[in-house]
């Protein structure tokens, strides 16, 4: 199986035609996963029955593969009258799945904030909401930028799973070409390189963001 560069280049337009879908799914899922994960973590912190329920849910999510989740949401929910579009299932599935992981990131990020910060805020008379928004959240963001970036890359790398839902994303396009031409090396390499490039861009962006966020906190 030799590698034909011309052929590889010729696959580029087809594969790139799906980059919009891949990015859309990844971006929305990142936001969704972060939002749900933060909600999970806040709920867990408040303790009580809900706290335990959320804790179990997070462990459940961690203990099961994302693919199976997508199958369940896509093929099983309709039997119970819930019919979501493939795109919606993909985004909800990835968001839910990664929210479990991100909530752990948020947990670590919040735990790393010295207790004195919350105490200082309370001593100044700040309410719970103000404290969360103006004192805890900004510092948490600084603590978690790097691990959160890693998960954003993971979410990107998980978009090919949406092929099982017939969502036309990049790796699926590459496999389309492969199964039509029976040449695997070229389309897969092209898709792999695009994914790698996107992943590098994301992690660089996160690094910069982290640098900017951290600047005031360093000497």
């Amino acid at each position: 199986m030799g590698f034909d560069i011309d052929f590889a280049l010729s696959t580029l337009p087809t594969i790139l035609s799906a980059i919009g879908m891949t990015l859309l799914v990844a971006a929305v899922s990142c936001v969704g996963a972060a939002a749900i994960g933060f909600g999970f973590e806040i709920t867990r912190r408040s303790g009580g029955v809900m706290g335990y329920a959320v804790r179990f849910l997070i462990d459940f999510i961690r203990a099961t593969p994302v693919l199976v989740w997508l199958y369940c949401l896509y093929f099983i929910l309709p039997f119970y009258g819930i019919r979501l579009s493939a795109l919606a299932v993909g985004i909800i599935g990835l968001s839910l799945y990664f929210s479990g992981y991100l909530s752990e990131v948020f947990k670590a990020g919040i735990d790393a904030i010295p207790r004195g910060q919350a105490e200082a805020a309370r001593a100044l008379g700040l309410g719970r909401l103000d404290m969360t928004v103006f004192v805890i959240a900004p510092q948490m963001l600084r603590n978690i930028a790097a691990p959160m970036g890693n998960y954003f890359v993971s979410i990107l790398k998980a978009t090919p799973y949406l092929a099982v839902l017939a969502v036309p994303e990049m790796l699926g396009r590459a496999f389309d070409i492969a199964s039509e031409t029976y040449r695997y090396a070229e389309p897969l390499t092209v898709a792999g390189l695009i994914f790698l490039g996107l992943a590098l861009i994301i992690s660089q962006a996160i690094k910069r963001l982290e640098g900017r966020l951290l600047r005031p906190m360093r000497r």
Partner: protein
Amino acid sequence: MPQTAKTPAVHAVQIGALNKWYGTFHVLRDVSLTVPNGSRIVVCGPSGSGKSTLIRCLNGLEAYQQGTVTLGATRLGENARETTLARRQTGMVFQNFNLFPHLTVLSNCTLALRRVLGMARHEAESLARHHLEKVRIPEQANKYPAQLSGGQQQRVAIARALCMNPRLMLFDEPTSALDPEMIKEVLDVMTGLANEGMTMICVTHEMGFAREVADQVVFMDQGSIVEQASPSTFFTTPGHPRARSFLNTLLH
């Protein structure tokens, strides 16, 4: 400034038979203390004797199980709204400064003014600058805490607390994380405050400061106040043997 409308109390703080447990561990045992308006109390005692716990009870950072804490005319915990108002009039300065590292010095000072008191930005900033001047670092207003020395950070923390116009200031070992030179600059600011008549309760082992500034020295051991006296009495003729041995180690 919001203010309780009741008759101005003579005592800034009254602590009555305060008891607190951590699980089964009895941290505060029947602590009673009266702090008249304008007085300066220094609290000292061995590590673990409950000094921090006591002053944290005064502004609601710790809950307690028995006893009463009265700030001005407000009994803490009786009425939620009044409790909040009373607490707001208590400023607290911590050993580790606890400045918000992601905010500039100025924003550290204005945050509560704007979010709690709802002041306009302009007004809040000019008030903050006024207090920064008072602690002698107006020029640092736009820096971040990490860019300041420890002494400067602690002075910002004091300014931040002062911005809320407190009637009582609590200090928990404000100089024990500082280098010797910086200790002096912070103590100077505190002495200035005391001279202006601020009521303050200060946990510290700076005995020079206690001697110079305090009206009363309170010595705690194992959760109880075992001695309370004027500095001159306390330093020359401590009554309790525990206080005596403590003073000994302190002055080696």
